[in-house]
């Protein structure tokens, strides 16, 4: 679990978008640009983009139920060797233990059509923390450091 943090303003990019699935492609373009400016390897770029898209999909679909009037907020902290991404929604929050109870790669989980989002983030990023304030929204904070080898096989 994590709590809000202060980052040096001169390294922070902020972004917000309406809760519309078709705008995830705009978010993806932004993430690609940030990662390429930071010289991440392509495998890492894919991992980061996939993970940010998962967190954003959850905010749009689960937290905001695709209500386009409610924005999803993002912060990208462009560190020397590390990217921090925060995805902030204004939903009701959820039970993270329950959400992660079923392994989506196990014999039962693999046949489900849902339940892979958080698993993907955790597999692809170096760290993923959830700050869930019940009734007040969720903050997902993910980090990926540049030196790390691609963890696609992890």
């Amino acid at each position, binding site marked *: 679990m994590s709590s809000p943090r202060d980052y040096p303003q001169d390294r922070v990019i902020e972004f917000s978008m309406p809760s519309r*699935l*078709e705008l*995830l*492609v705009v978010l*993806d373009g932004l993430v690609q640009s940030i990662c390429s400016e930071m010289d991440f390897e*392509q*495998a890492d770029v*894919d*991992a980061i*983009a*996939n993970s940010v*898209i*998962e967190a954003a*999909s959850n905010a749009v*679909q689960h937290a905001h139920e*695709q209500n386009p009037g409610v924005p999803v907020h993002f912060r990208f902290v462009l560190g020397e060797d590390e990217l921090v991404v925060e995805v902030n929604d204004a939903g009701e929050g959820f039970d993270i233990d329950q959400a992660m109870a079923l392994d*989506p*790669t196990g014999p039962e989980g*693999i*046949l*489900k*059509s*849902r*339940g*892979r*989002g958080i*698993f*993907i983030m955790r*597999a*692809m990023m170096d760290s993923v923390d959830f700050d869930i304030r019940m009734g007040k929204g969720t903050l997902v904070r993910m980090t990926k450091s540049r030196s790390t080898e*691609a963890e*696609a*096989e*992890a």
Partner: protein
Amino acid sequence: MKIKQEAIGDVYVVRLSGQLMGGPDADAVRETILSALNQGYRNILIDLKDVSWVNSTGLGILMSAHITATQNGGKVKLMRISSRIDSIFMVTRLNTVFQVFDKEDEALASFEGETSEGQKS
């Protein structure tokens, strides 16, 4: 996302383009698969060449297609996935569920001899 479909021999090829990420996409893919099954096709090949990325909801759509086809004696295979999609398949182990081909001719050929119980009606 856009869907095009085409029958090549007894293989029903479904070509997707854009991003596969839920919303109306789910219904559209599901209906395409059902329509292929209703027409008697059992061999379904989904072409992901023009899909730049999928999210977990998109994976769910593919998984539903697999289950729907299997329940009706059919089979869904995939072809031409990007390295980005490949990485998400590895992580989620969907690479153990789907046969994935790099080339269309190999994908089409792979269905031969598998059609015994699911022949075109």
